[in-house]
């Protein structure tokens, strides 16, 4: 790159021809010779430090361009290059500026430094605009940075104006300046996007998670469970494992922290402890939606940064295990996200063969439970720029990620895409103020889609980066007016009229089922397996476990399936639940505590996943999984005899219901005999509508009453 040489050459161009530009020369300050001398000295010292910083800056820029083929998109891509020198230079240059505020080169240097040290500061714009007005021939990167400073401060029109001015300068040598020109074109587009998004802001509330989570140290990269009962995040605190500081940025090494909700408040965050955290950098990379699987990022020079996994076993997190080579390559792997069924892992990697910089990949779990080959998520999601912070929502189809491509308004922006009809939708920018012109990354969202979590170093926090919660208010809710008219001439009573603007129901279509599994008699929490079955396909979708210490479980059920759920533990009767969720079923959170019953005489369970044709005794195919479980139970307990009791709701006559229920229970018995269970172990009994478990006045109640129970008659 010859850019640096060009800039230096331009930097020393004499600007004395411009009347408003004032050089540090005696002729310009005839009565202030001593002060001029001091000012010149300060200027020279400042300039020396600036040039060193500028060289380092240029080195990083050239390195970046060589690696990527395009200019850095984010401020952070410059990795604070030159900052040490810029900090040295600044007080000297400010002293010189105090003496002579009308020198173009000095204003250029101060603007350059101000932007690099704090791009949001209005100083960068002030100095660079002054420099440009004093001498429009300041180095083109000064005009470029002026555009960028305006962009970062949401001054879109000014940004576009200065970018266009920079473009005009670059185009004088278009061949040599192809890379910066391409970047200016991108940044102008970012400004146009930003202008549109800022004009139509999202309705949100942003709230700091408070001192239980945030401190004066950096906190970031937060992950939450679908029900927001737990948060895991990264922090660089003085309590870091090993107490070491990072020489590069002076801060403490990263550790992972955890907190749980107490009512509506977070409990004080705790360090995950030495099993999960090491004396080096350890950062959160992902968390399963039930909060039992934690992904950890650890950096080692030789592997470029890899992902590890830790499991919650009771109340103990296991030692993080390195994910296999399909996930971890020699390149950099960062954030990961596990699908609701635990069968697909989305992750970010900058391995070779991608579409450019970091890309989103996924890997499916094979039959042996190993992660299979990584597959690039494709060009709809991935761009030639970097993607980061992938998060697959527990609804199973909505992905959130950050990208420097697509229609970002600058740096990383957060996007959303939905997998429908076999393809990802065009990524949609989440809009302002979720996104701004700087980097917005590592965003997660709860099950209902109403709350998101992210980190920001915004003012008013507890120090450095803090974790914030976003509440999405959705489209503006029009207040509902009440009106009435005298519609009928001969009737005096007014007729009321209600009118509200319609708002389409939005948000995730899914159900969160959660609760505690315990022993029916002792009430002690149980570690049970929770089998999730797609009844229509008769396929086991996933198997989860309740926590051995707390008995807690959480299962995400995306709408659009008839789910059978079997909670099983050896020595206990299994418990079954059915959730028939049409694709249109809106988000709901169902809390269901399950008490498993020991296999004992007189114990009864309800088989919620045995289905019959309407008004018939024909067993429907989607009952197969439940019946198989029953067969397994009878096979494993060969001495027990059971009664299969069928029940109806109160619709229809007593006699009809009695006969129907008897036929249905007999159908189940016949099925079991056909599968090898001895007939003398089975009793079919129809109860008709005589034993309701819920009111027959509602659809829900009637559904509860239509059921098949089995009872252990003897052991």
């Amino acid at each position, binding site marked *: 790159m010859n850019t640096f040489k060009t800039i230096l050459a331009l930097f020393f161009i004499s600007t004395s021809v411009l009347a408003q530009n004032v050089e540090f020369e005696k002729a310009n300050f005839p009565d202030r010779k001593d002060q001029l001398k001091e000012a010149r000295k300060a200027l020279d010292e400042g300039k020396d430090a600036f040039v060193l910083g500028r060289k380092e800056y240029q080195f990083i820029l050239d390195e970046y361009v060589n690696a990527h083929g395009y200019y850095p998109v984010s401020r952070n891509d410059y990795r604070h290059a030159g900052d040490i020198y810029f900090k040295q230079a600044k007080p000297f240059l400010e002293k010189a500026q105090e003496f002579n505020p009308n020198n173009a080169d000095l204003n250029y240097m101060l603007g350059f430094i101000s932007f690099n040290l704090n791009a949001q500061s209005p100083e960068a714009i002030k100095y660079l605009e002054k420099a440009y007005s004093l001498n429009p021939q300041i180095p083109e990167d000064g005009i470029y940075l002026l555009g960028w400073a305006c962009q970062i401060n949401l001054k879109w029109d000014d940004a576009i104006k200065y970018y266009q001015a920079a473009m005009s300068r670059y185009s004088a040598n278009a061949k040599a300046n192809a890379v910066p020109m391409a970047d200016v074109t991108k940044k102008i587009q970012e400004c146009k996007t930003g202008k549109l998004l800022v004009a139509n802001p999202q309705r949100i509330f942003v709230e700091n998670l408070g001192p239980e989570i945030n401190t004066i140290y950096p906190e970031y990269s937060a992950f939450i469970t679908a029900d927001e009962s737990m948060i895991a995040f990264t922090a660089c605190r003085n309590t870091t494992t090993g107490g070491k500081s990072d020489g590069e940025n002076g801060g403490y090494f990263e550790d992972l922290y955890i907190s749980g909700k107490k009512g509506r408040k977070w409990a004080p965050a705790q360090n995950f402890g030495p099993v999960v955290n090491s004396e080096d950098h350890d950062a959160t990379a992902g968390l399963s939606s039930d909060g039992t699987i934690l992904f950890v990022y650890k950096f080692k020079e030789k592997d470029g940064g890899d992902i590890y996994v830790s499991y919650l076993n009771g109340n103990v997190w296991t030692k993080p295990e390195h994910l296999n080579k399909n996930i971890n390559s020699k390149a950099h792997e960062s954030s990961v996200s596990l699908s609701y069924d635990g069968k697909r892992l989305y992750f970010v990697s900058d391995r070779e063969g991608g579409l450019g910089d970091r890309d989103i990949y996924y890997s499916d779990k094979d039959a042996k439970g190993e992660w299979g080959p990584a597959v690039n998520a494709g060009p709809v999601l991935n761009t030639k720029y970097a993607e980061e912070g992938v998060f697959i929502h527990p609804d199973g189809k909505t992905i959130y990620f950050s990208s420097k491509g697509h229609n970002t308004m600058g740096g990383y922006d957060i996007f959303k895409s939905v997998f429908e009809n076999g393809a990802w939708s065009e990524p949609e920018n989440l809009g302002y103020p979720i996104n701004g012109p700087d980097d917005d990354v590592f965003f997660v969202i709860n099950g209902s889609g109403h709350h998101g979590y992210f980190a920001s170093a915004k003012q008013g926090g507890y120090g450095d980066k803090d974790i914030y919660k976003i509440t999405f208010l959705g489209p503006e809710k029009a207040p509902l*007016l009440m*009106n009435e008219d005298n519609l009928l001439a001969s009737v005096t009573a007014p007729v009321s009229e209600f009118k509200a603007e319609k708002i389409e129901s939005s948000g995730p279509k899914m159900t969160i089922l959660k609760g505690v599994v315990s022993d029916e008699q002792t009430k002690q929490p149980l570690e049970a397996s929770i089998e999730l079955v797609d009844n229509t396909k008769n396929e086991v979708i996933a198997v989860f476990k309740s926590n051995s210490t707390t008995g807690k479980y959480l299962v995400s059920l995306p709408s659009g399936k008839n789910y059978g759920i079997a909670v099983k533990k050896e020595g206990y009767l299994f418990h079954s639940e059915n959730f028939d969720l049409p694709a249109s079923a809106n988000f709901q959170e169902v809390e269901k505590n399950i008490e498993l019953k020991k296999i004992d005489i007189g114990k009864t369970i309800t088989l919620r996943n045995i289905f019959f044709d309407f008004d018939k005794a024909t067993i429907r195919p989607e009952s197969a999984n439940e019946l198989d479980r029953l067969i397994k139970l009878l096979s494993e307990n060969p001495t027990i005899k059971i009664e299969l009791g069928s029940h109806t709701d109160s619709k229809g006559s007593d006699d009809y219901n009695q006969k129907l229920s008897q036929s249905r229970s007999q159908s189940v018995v016949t099925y079991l005999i056909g599968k090898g269970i001895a007939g003398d172990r089975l009793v079919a009994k129809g109860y008709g509508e005589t034993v309701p478990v819920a009111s027959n006045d509602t659809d829900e109640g009637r559904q509860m009453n239509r059921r098949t129970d089995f009872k252990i008659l003897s052991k």
Partner: protein
Amino acid sequence: MMQKIVLVSLGLLCFQVNAQDTVKVKTNLTPAQEAENAYNQGLEFMNQKNTDMAIESFSKAINLNPSFEKAYYNRGFAKFESKNYQGSLDDYTKALGLKALYPDALYGKAQSFYALHQNDSCLSYLNKTTLVDEAYSKAYYLAGQLKFESGDYKEAVAEYDKAIAARPDYAYAYNDRASAKRQLGDDAGAIADYEKAVASDPTMYFAYNNLGSCKRNKGDHAGAIGAYNKALSLKPDYYLALNNRGSAKLNSNDINGAIADFDAALRQKADYALAMNNMASAYIKKKDYKAAEDWVNKAIRADAKAGAAYLNRGIIKQMQQNEEGACEDWKKAAELGIPEGKRYASGLCD
């Protein structure tokens, strides 16, 4: 657009007094002549709105002449006016026993059945009335009203069509047909009919109000405000129109104008929950959530079943970052039949 019909009371049925022609009195009084005198006296009392004395006079006429069908009819009418609907029904029946093809008595019976909430019998007698006199416009009109009240707006329009065919300047029928069309979503037809109603009777302030509301629902806020202005020029204390004009102003983002109108409506009717709720809506639009909360609480105190007020309080609470309170109110709004309540609560509040 969702419209909820609540016809609370029958109230003043504006049936025009249908007293029979005066009978000429002769000088040499026979019992029949005395009966005629008593009958005429009864009519006089009716004109003075003294129904008790009228009933007494008509009874005297009937005693003197038991086959005096007009006296039965008018006593029935007087009883109807004094809200003795069973009594009026009996007298109309007697009148019809003396004169079977008596359209006024048939219609009177229909009215009595209507007042006694016996709608099937009412409709049956309305049919009989128009069989006897196919130009009996009031019978078609009342049939239209019955259909309207039962929610059968299409049938109501058909009955009003017949009423208007029988009497082309029938302003009430135009107004009511317009309202039925409005319920059917035919705003253009409704507006045309309301305009015909006020053309036939330019003093019909409520028809101007209805016209305004129809235009407001169509988004023609300027047109609506014009119509409400006309209604208010005819009846300045018409709080419905004040409240409605405020809504039109609010919809056209004249928030201060809206507040002034809601305030004026409340000066006419201090406990008017609708205007209180709408005042809250105006302050929501102003993003003055404290004032909005005060007003919406007043609305709920005035009418605990004002679902819209609960919905609005939920909106206010959400903007005050009180999610739990918002959920509680939206669920209550849903319970009170406001569908938006369920939609807003969905997901956030489960």
